[in-house]
């Protein structure tokens, strides 16, 4: 009998040990469901690829944004800048290693940046680091462990620009021209995780812990980053337990369901993103009265609060109201006023003469081509704007497509309204974002021939161009902020863009399994060593 009891006790103990081991193993693995925007991890390949490495915690940059959009050192701990703001000497943090064990020292950092600039000069690489930093030279001082960046123009704050994912530091092993390296499926960075495998077709990635991480032990031994395109699927997947963590469930009702359940922790923040529709000045919306009436017919507040259920915070300026650009001083004369919109059109002679319910311009029914895609509620905005414009007698045809097709249609100018969602201050200020409306006397209008042009909406304003040029030339922060506000006011006065609102990002975790899953203000950062299993 004693023997039997011992055997039973031993069996129970073994079973408990097995259970504990299985449980520990489960705790060591994180299932992350997310939208994967790129089929590559190479920061030089194209912008989304650069973002992907940083979002999945594989790569890091010299600096990083805090939640209040101030900048902290990351791989660089201290820096000095010359008086003319053209020479930046960056000290690389001692003791940092790449995930393969190599030292991430000044030479490695300089090589990584030099390789970026070298290969991006070639056609097959689409990233554009020169857009943000016009680099003259990159030199390393091995003894002082510093990298000196000399730029051709003065920059008010290069550290914020160096947070941008283009400038992530990867181990290029001295290969400055990609002669023997290909970073599509994997890249060696300094982040908490390492790409173990990546399927470029399904865009699913398996990550493992970086044993050499400079900030200490990484909580998860492995992470499965599964590409989930559909928001409702993300919500259902976390509810079913298939994933433990996900980002940006943008269907308000699904997010509300998760928020109401204590099993899930939803971290939300007002991001630096603006949702808006470009208005194409080369089409019928070049007519000032029609364009103003379009803006006046849209009840932006209700769209943000009800139609997309609070996924956006309403605002009419192109930059989020939470930024430092004096939103409260801006005046918008073309806010929601349906009757005013109708009167404006009637007074301008844009009326419905044939009684079909659609107004005519130059003898033809007004039908606006609205291109959008299913991302961050943009298609919901498009549908709501379609019915809003129907109320004032303007027909809208929506083309709901994918982001790549939309981009091609936009470049071809085949639109009147084109939805977009931009990170407005990706380099710490809106230099790149405000280029969308910079005409440069017509030289910056995209026409298919000039690949470097950034103005796809054919908006031209001398006043705006002058302000933009003064803004880029200035290194005085207060003056720059004032110029940005003035540019915003010009855009508002011209009804140059239809702003939907400012996107609120979210991170959703299973609170019984995961802790520390907080969303960052700027969405370069998803996975970090702060996200840990529940003890």
């Amino acid at each position: 009998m004693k023997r039997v009891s011992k055997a039973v006790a031993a069996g129970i103990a073994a079973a408990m040990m097995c259970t504990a081991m299985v449980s520990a193993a489960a705790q060591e693995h994180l299932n992350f469901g997310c939208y994967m925007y790129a089929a590559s991890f190479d920061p030089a390949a194209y912008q989304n690829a650069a973002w992907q490495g940083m979002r999945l915690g594989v790569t890091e940059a010299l600096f990083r944004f805090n939640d209040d959009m101030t900048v902290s050192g990351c791989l660089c701990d201290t820096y000095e800048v010359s008086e003319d703001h053209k020479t930046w000497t960056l000290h690389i943090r001692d003791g940092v290693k790449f995930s393969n064990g190599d030292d991430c020292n000044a030479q490695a950092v300089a090589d990584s940046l030099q390789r970026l600039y070298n290969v991006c000069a070639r056609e097959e690489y689409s990233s554009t680091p020169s857009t943000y930093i016009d680099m003259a030279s990159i030199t390393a001082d091995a003894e002082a462990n510093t990298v000196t960046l000399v730029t051709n123009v003065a920059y008010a704050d290069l550290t914020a620009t160096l947070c941008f994912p283009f400038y992530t530091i990867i181990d290029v092993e001295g290969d400055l021209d990609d002669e023997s390296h290909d970073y599509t499926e994997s890249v060696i960075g300094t982040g908490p995780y390492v790409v173990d495998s990546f399927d470029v077709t399904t865009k699913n990635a398996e990550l493992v812990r970086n044993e050499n991480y400079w900030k200490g032990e990484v909580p998860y031994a492995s992470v499965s980053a599964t590409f989930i395109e559909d928001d409702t699927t993300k919500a259902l997947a976390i509810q079913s337990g298939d994933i433990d963590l996900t980002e940006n469930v943008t269907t308000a009702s699904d997010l509300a369901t998760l928020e109401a359940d204590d099993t899930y922790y939803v971290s939300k923040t007002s991001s630096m993103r603006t949702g808006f529709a470009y208005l194409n000045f080369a089409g019928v919306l070049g007519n000032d009265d029609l364009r103003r009436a379009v803006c006046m017919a849209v009840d932006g507040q209700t769209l943000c609060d009800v139609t997309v259920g609070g996924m956006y915070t309403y605002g009419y300026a192109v930059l989020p109201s939470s930024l430092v650009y004096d939103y409260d001083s801006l005046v918008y004369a073309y806010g929601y006023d349906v009757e005013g919109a109708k009167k404006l059109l009637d007074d301008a002679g844009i009326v419905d003469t044939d009684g079909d319910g659609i107004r005519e311009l130059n003898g033809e029914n007004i039908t606006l081509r609205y291109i959008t895609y299913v991302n961050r509620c943009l298609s919901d905005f498009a549908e709501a704007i379609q019915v809003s414009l129907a109320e004032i007698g303007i027909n809208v045809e929506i083309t709901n497509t994918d982001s790549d097709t939309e981009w091609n249609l936009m470049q071809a100018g085949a639109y009147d309204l084109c939805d977009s969602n931009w990170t407005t201050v990706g380099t710490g200020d809106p230099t790149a974002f405000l280029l969308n409306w910079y005409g440069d006397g017509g030289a910056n209008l995209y026409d298919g021939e000039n690949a470097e042009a950034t103005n796809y909406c054919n908006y031209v304003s001398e006043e705006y161009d002058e302000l933009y040029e003064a803004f880029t030339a200035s290194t005085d922060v207060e003056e720059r902020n004032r110029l940005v506000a003035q540019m915003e006011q010009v855009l508002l006065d011209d009804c140059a863009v239809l702003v939907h609102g400012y996107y609120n990002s979210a991170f959703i975790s299973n609170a019984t399994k995961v802790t520390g899953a907080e969303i960052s203000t700027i969405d370069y950062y998803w996975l970090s060593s702060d996200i840990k299993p529940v003890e």
Partner: protein
Amino acid sequence: MKKKHVLFVSFLCLALLIVLAAVLAPYLVPYDPFAASLTDALKPPSAEHLFGTDKLGRDLFSRVIYGSRASLASALALVACIFALGSVVGIAAGYFGGWIDAVLMRLADMMISFPGMVLAIAVAGILGASMTNAVIAVALVSWTKYARLSRSLVLKIKGCEYLAAARLTGSRTGHIMWRYLFPNAVPTLVITAATDIGSMMLELAGLSFLGFGAQAPMAEWGLMLSEGRSYMQKAPWMMVFPGLAIFCVVVVFNLLGDSLRDVLDPREEE
């Protein structure tokens, strides 16, 4: 009246009721199905809105009733197209035989070698998303059934003496096909067409659900299902009522087709 006739008449009445609802939709609906009231979004079913409201605050009952217009009209147009196209091709192939038969039937074989819905998605994707293009896409992959059926029916009667007599008396080919071949094939083809209405409606709704058919703000059941998918948990009525509408109409037209077959099938008499 025989039982099968009673059944046929019953289903015919139900089908007519659906058609009537579609025709008289403007007089039946309490609200403009396209009028949005953004502040009334996602209201549950109530006395004010029998089926609730959708994400733009539009009355769902009105949209479901109006949806019958788009769904029925497109399904009937589609069936008419494939009926006409398939019959002409099949009768021609069966009657002329030889290389005409070989070419037409190999073409039909090619079309049916692809999964129908996948090919329809590809065609609709190339043509662009619209209800008309969805009808064209499904028609391109569905006519083969009628062609093969009518061809086999023609082959069955091709050797009959009355056809030889017609030729002997100088009847022209067109006359023979229209006067002798087509009437012989028609009952079977009509039964097939009647039973196809439901399945064609489902295929069109499927394409609209996937974004290749009807586009917003059209009131179409497949599109309405797609719009409701994101609100499945919070506003299930957005999926339930368009789904029920598809279910009921497809069942009625399928049963109508079955009962019509029972009525017309001569073997049942024996």
